[in-house]
């Protein structure tokens, strides 16, 4: 009876997963392992992947750097919010969420307008008599775009964890002789670990597969794996290779989050990130 009920309740979700996740995944797998022209089974697409290893590497690198910058920027913000009175906390929380209500594309385009060779920043510099800077088309611009877009994904999980740290633990640490800095390093930071890990995951995963940011803000030398995949499906017209690349990227993300989770449970003993 009970079993039937829970089956009934989870039914829609299972159906959803089946239709929109598992079946497409199967299709991706099918494409990845078949020849573009003949449609017969082949490892060929996967063999070609070595060509794209550098791109994959730089995608991972950009995303990691962005995630770390988000952490450094986001932690103080989250900590600050968590230590305000409850009402202020709610308002600040909303403010952090606010950019997420705006289209991702618009947010990125706004940066284009700012950074362009004759964009707002350069116009302003020129006005002050300073020659234009090359802002757009640089790795810095791509990372800026990632950090800007994904920062809330770092702040929110961090805030959720930090706000739950029991103030009495901080008092206990002070009582046992910790200076404020030691209180942070010995108690607050270790207890924030689950938030840090989930924040990094939440930034890293979308950043590593993004294509729009690098297309708009990056140059030719900052092509990311997401761009390559997109191109296979569109202009290059090789969905089989694109599928193979997607598959590998997905695997990579799985491995990364797996390592994170593992790391987290070692530290925290089973806290699910």
């Amino acid at each position, binding site marked *: 009876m009970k079993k039937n009920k829970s089956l009934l309740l989870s039914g829609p979700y299972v159906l959803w997963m089946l239709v929109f996740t598992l079946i497409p995944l199967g299709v991706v797998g099918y494409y990845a392992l078949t020849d573009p022209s003949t449609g017969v089974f082949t490892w060929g697409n996967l063999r070609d992947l070595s060509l794209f290893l550098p791109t994959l590497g730089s995608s991972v690198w950009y995303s990691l750097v962005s995630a770390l910058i988000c952490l450094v920027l986001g932690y103080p913000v989250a900590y600050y919010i968590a230590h305000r009175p409850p009402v202020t906390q709610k308002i600040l929380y909303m403010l952090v969420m606010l950019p997420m209500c705006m289209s991702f594309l618009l947010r990125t385009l706004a940066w284009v307008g700012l950074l362009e060779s004759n964009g707002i920043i350069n116009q302003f510099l020129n006005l002050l008599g300073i020659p234009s800077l090359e802002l757009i088309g640089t790795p810095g611009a791509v990372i800026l775009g990632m950090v800007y877009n994904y920062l809330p994904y770092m702040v929110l999980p961090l805030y959720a964890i930090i706000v739950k740290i029991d103030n009495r633990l901080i*008092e206990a*640490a*002070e*009582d*046992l002789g910790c*200076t404020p800095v030691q209180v942070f390093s010995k*108690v607050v930071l*270790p207890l924030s670990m689950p938030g840090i890990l989930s924040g990094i995951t939440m930034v890293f995963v979308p950043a590593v597969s993004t294509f729009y940011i690098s297309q708009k803000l990056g140059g030719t030398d900052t092509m990311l794996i997401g761009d390559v995949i997109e191109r296979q499906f569109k202009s290059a017209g090789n969905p089989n290779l694109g599928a193979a690349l997607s598959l590998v990227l997905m695997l990579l993300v799985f491995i990364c989050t797996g390592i994170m989770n593992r790391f987290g449970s070692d530290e925290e003993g089973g806290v699910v990130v």
Partner: protein
Amino acid sequence: MSKELIRLQDLTMEFDGERILDGINLYFNDHEFLTLLGPSGCGKTTTLRIIGGFLTPTSGRVLFDGKCINDVPPYQRQINTVFQRYALFPHLDVFGNIAFGLNVAKLPKAEIAQRVSEILEVVGLQGFEHRRIDSLSGGQQQRVAIARALVNRPKVLLLDEPLAALDLRLRKDMQNELKRIQQAMGITFIYVTHDQEEALSMSDTVVVMDKGRIQQIGKPEDIYNEPKNAFVADFIGESNILDGVMLEDYKVKFFGRTFKCLDAGFAPNEPVDVVIRPEDIDFVPPEEGHLTGTVTSVTFKGLNYDIIVDFKGFKWLIQTTDHQPEGATVGIRLNPEDIHVMRKSEYSGMFGDYSSYSAEYDELTEDAADEEE
């Protein structure tokens, strides 16, 4: 026990305009075992938190060795705390928790291991070094909290109801153990409890608090035998408290009779509260008694009977091993040492009347019956 170590001067604490501590004046001697005793919400924890440095008093000063430490942060005070709800670090195991203070003090590894294992033995948790905190029972966590503070050998240890989560047997054992540790290590204990028996049996000095004010300070015997007002008399043990008039030194009148007593120093004919402890009263045959009354209820309590006797409409609690049947007419004699006289206070008339003793009981059962319907 000699030198003064800590002094609280005119301590007042307000939260949102509400006065929680009201003019606390108190000193603690070196090596003393002092207990703050009082009902829930009377400000015990608040007082401890001020001494520990976690709260800044609204006004008044905390002196340590004669120096004002109001502005000294907790980590610079030679004081450790056993917190009311343990506050153990969930990210560390038992060893990590206990070694925390020693690690902060950067002691050599070998010494840390040595001291932790010593203290684990004291609290009876050998072999628990690598257990996770959330895998411990409440009582075990409480003992880890005690060990975590004690291992630092502080000059002063603040303990906020450290034994509240233990069962009776373990509590008794830990009481003895804490007392032994306190004497052996020469630490000043400032102990908070609302268990009067615990306070009386462990302390050198008991401070009875209520509503943010100190009601009485004294040795356990003095607090018990000579309570200052009706609140203390009622809070420490059971008491029958009666209205009386102090005719002159050593003569008090109540129930229309004059009794000899041991108290003096009151104004002639001053109205007073008279305390008679239930266990000090012995039955005599009615014709020999100072007072005669009727037994209205008898409850077996193991060690003794709780007997309620109606004297002219005022009901007394009498604790005795001498069984009397309900409805019996009994007499009692009151010797001068059985009578204790107190000045009237704001608490007069609020405590010490057992008229509702049995009625309360009936009401409770009725309520329970109502709820079932």
